[in-house]
């Protein structure tokens, strides 16, 4: 059974996010002066072929811990899970 997942990887809350800061400082120049706390992360979409949703999810969590994110600086969240029609 194939499932399509979306994972979001983001810099941990305590850490300074230089990319987010750069985006934040560009916004006022375009007239938006009411924006703060911008954080930039990564959006990963992938398909896992496994026996069950639980198995696919467990595998994805391990992959996210070991490769998609670096636990020293990042958190990850699985956003959506959708069965792919055969």
């Amino acid at each position, binding site marked *: 059974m194939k499932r399509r997942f979306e994972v979001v990887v983001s810099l941990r809350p305590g850490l300074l996010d230089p990319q987010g800061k750069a985006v934040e400082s560009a916004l006022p120049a375009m007239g938006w002066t009411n924006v703060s706390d911008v954080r930039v992360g*990564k959006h990963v979409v992938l398909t896992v072929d496994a026996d069950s949703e639980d198995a696919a999810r467990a595998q994805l969590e391990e992959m996210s811990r070991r490769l*998609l994110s670096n636990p*020293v600086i990042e958190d990850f969240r699985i956003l959506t899970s959708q069965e792919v029609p055969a």
Partner: protein
Amino acid sequence: MRRPRVGVVTFPGSLDDRDAVRAVGAMGGEGVSLWHADRDLRDVDAVILPGGFSYGDYLRCGAIARFAPIMEEVVRFAGAGGPVVGICNGFQILCEAGLVPGALIRNRSLRFICRVVDVRVETSLSPLTEGLTAGDVLQIPVKHGEGQFVASAEDLARVEGDGLVVFRYCAPDGTIDDAHNVNGAADAIAGVRNEGGNVVGLMPHPEHAVDPDVGPTGGQPLLASLLSRALAKV
């Protein structure tokens, strides 16, 4: 006397591998080229993971290189006490592999930085600093976009408490201040070692600082230390 053999790993996208091999030779050692897809360290006495942009820095700097076949051998070599040095991208790979604490993120300035900096030696307990004294200041170039050292509060406390900091960015007289913290690193950290004292990662490039004809020579004592550690291990 036998010349110490220092292996330098080439990953797809490594840039400073040839410079590292050459610098080892200039300092009296034998530079040995190693290939990322091999599982053979060719009987070397020390390993350098060089700078560059392995795998295009995709996902995170060092994140893919860390899983290269040769890294299993490097991890085994390090576990057995062998001296391992990661320079710049090599430092990022060591962090991703969990061989040294912390991680490296985008520079505080958001700019790529390429210039000679002053770094202060913090400990002689590392493969690069055995012949040096804490407080020594060396001139070495940096060239990186993602060299800002970070760690969780607990990890940083451990790094400082256990004396794992090997280098800090400093003023020419050795003073640590924010103005000379070139990339905004936590505690101005430019290099750290593991608990065992045989693995060290640093952002500055000692291999680019051995030839007086092309700039400062702050890399000489570091590579000399590595060569003597490599010989001691034999």
